């Protein structure tokens, strides 16, 4: 049984200018101990997917229209607030993009790290403080006893991200959701943080959902990757397969537009048109208006993610029908 099993998640935002279908029928599962990457451009729904699972979508204007997310027998989307609280922050933890704004500037680092422990476990403050010091050391911060008494502004960007990781992992969660945790950091610090996440994941045997727009980060870290476009999943594959043999026109187009994969100085492929307007209900494939392989039928056909090879699923009807082969 998978650790987390999400079926047909739909989250929309009801605003004055219309209903935005941010997540539009997404199903996926995460196995124990694996790393699942979710990639997509801004507005593709990758963050809202995870915010929905964590109950972090502000309601209103957000609304979870349908879906099930089973985690250890509890449906995260339809359980009592007490059940959700027992899981969130203890068995599922989350780290965010911007370590500058997601720590409370008025509280000592130590207070913030022990908070999940004090809430979820019967533990004395002194013991919690000891554990926090051990955790801070585990994430590679020297002189943890002293550092615990400092405030976030006394930490550098990389150290704040380490402190956030310590806070998320102190309850030894089974699942860590990381929402672009290295986007705000410099490359040399990004390399440190990615190594740290990998190391701690091995030691604690936890599963990780890693949300990013950076395909290169995914290729280093993840076992499986799923690609989102316009609120829907368009492709899912083991990481290596996704990079060597992408089976959706959107993923293929993305790869052709990345400088690192092309010869120096060549003109990069550009995807024509604009990302879809999520406030308009769209029949058929969301990528069809920009796709070089689209047929008239792509705009009307029912689109589902379906297996095209072992462990590899694509939502392209033409790939499913065997009409387009990868390059």
């Amino acid at each position: 049984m998978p650790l987390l099993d999400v079926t047909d998640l739909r989250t929309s935002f009801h605003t004055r200018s219309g209903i935005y279908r941010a997540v539009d029928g997404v199903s996926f599962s995460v196995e124990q101990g694996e790393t699942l990457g979710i990639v997509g451009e801004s507005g593709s729904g990758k963050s809202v997917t995870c915010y929905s699972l964590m109950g972090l979508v502000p309601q209103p204007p957000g609304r979870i229209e349908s879906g099930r997310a089973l985690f250890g027998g509890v449906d995260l989307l339809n359980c009592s607030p007490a059940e959700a609280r027992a899981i969130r922050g203890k068995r599922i933890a989350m780290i965010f993009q911007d370590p500058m704004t997601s720590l409370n500037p008025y509280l000592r680092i130590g207070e913030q790290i022990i908070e999940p422990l004090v809430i979820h476990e019967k533990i004395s403050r002194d013991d919690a403080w000891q554990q926090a010091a051990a955790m801070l050391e585990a994430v590679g911060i020297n002189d943890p006893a002293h550092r615990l008494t400092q405030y976030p502004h006394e930490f550098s960007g990389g150290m704040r991200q380490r402190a956030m990781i310590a806070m998320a992992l102190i309850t030894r969660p089974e699942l860590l959701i990381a929402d672009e945790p290295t986007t705000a950091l410099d490359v040399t610090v990004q390399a440190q943080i990615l190594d740290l996440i990998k190391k701690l994941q091995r030691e604690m045997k936890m599963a990780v959902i890693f949300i990013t727009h950076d395909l290169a980060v995914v290729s280093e870290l993840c076992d499986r990757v799923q690609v989102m476009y316009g609120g829907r999943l368009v492709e899912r594959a083991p990481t290596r397969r996704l990079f060597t043999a992408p089976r959706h026109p959107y993923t293929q187009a993305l790869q052709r537009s990345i400088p690192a994969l092309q010869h120096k100085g060549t003109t990069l492929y550009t995807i024509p048109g604009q990302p879809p307007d999520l406030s308009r209900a769209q029949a058929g494939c969301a990528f069809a208006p920009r796709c070089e392989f689209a047929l008239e039928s792509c705009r009307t056909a029912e689109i589902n993610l379906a297996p095209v090879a072992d462990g590899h699923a694509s939502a392209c009807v033409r790939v499913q029908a065997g009409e387009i082969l990868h390059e």
Partner: protein
Amino acid sequence: MSETLLELHDVATHFTVESGGLWRGTKSVVRAVDGVSLSIARGEVVGMVGESGCGKSTLARTIMQLVPATAGRIVFQGRDLTQATAAEVKAARRGMQMVFQDPFASLNPRMTIFATLAEPLRVHRVCASEAVPARVARLLELVGLSSRDLHKYPHEFSGGQRQRIAIARALALEPQLIIADEPVSALDVSIQAQILNLLASLVREMNLSLLFIAHDLSVVKHISDRVAVMYLGKIVEFGPANEVIERPGHPYSQALISAIPTLDPAKARTRLVLAGDPPSPRQPPSGCAFHPRCPHAQAQCREITPRLTPITPAQAAACVRLGEF
């Protein structure tokens, strides 16, 4: 080598900051740019990479005379801008223009696209006022937007389109040099490709020189002829793009390049992970500023400040142990 357009000789930009208590503040000096020499030829693309706080944006602003240089000479088209009068600087600005990172912050939200693009033409009295609309329309076309968009406001455009508008504004005065400070960092991958293609084609067609500042090495490698690597206000390595990225000589360039995640999961690679964060330019380490994080540092590195030394005729790096590892 073709004609030199811009030359920097030992340029330094220092800021004085006050810190400490309310009454007994102490003054200290931040050496944001500390002795940079560089030249850009006509039609050449020079990439500048480095981590946040290394001084690459301050260097761009210093060249543009948006902040005064503390020392050194900035020679643009044969004229030293650090000694120039205000009128001369204004004239020089027609020849060099800047594109900023954030297309959401660098366009005035209360000005239509027409007003934004017409402003430089009016300020510099480039053409008669009757000719302005036609020129503005041509500029928009040049960057791949339609003249139907002229009377729209910035909020009606996507990030990629706004960056095109910012590029059109930079091109309005037909400059010889464009300084682009992280022009694609705020954009999604597919949009990034559009802007890179646009910049590359403009450079080719208009024989522009481009100083391209970014922290993404794969982007810099793609577009640049030569690359400079900056660390804590100094250039630590400079040379042809392919050589610097394939065979970096300075330990910092080596670490920076090995820190980039690869797209090829099959490619096994030993990674040099640097310990610690980049130090503050307020208290730079003695000697070679990189020595506290350098895997090859020796006692001498704490004392000697290395100068750029040639590795090949075209490539130079600033390290006392060059060639030893």
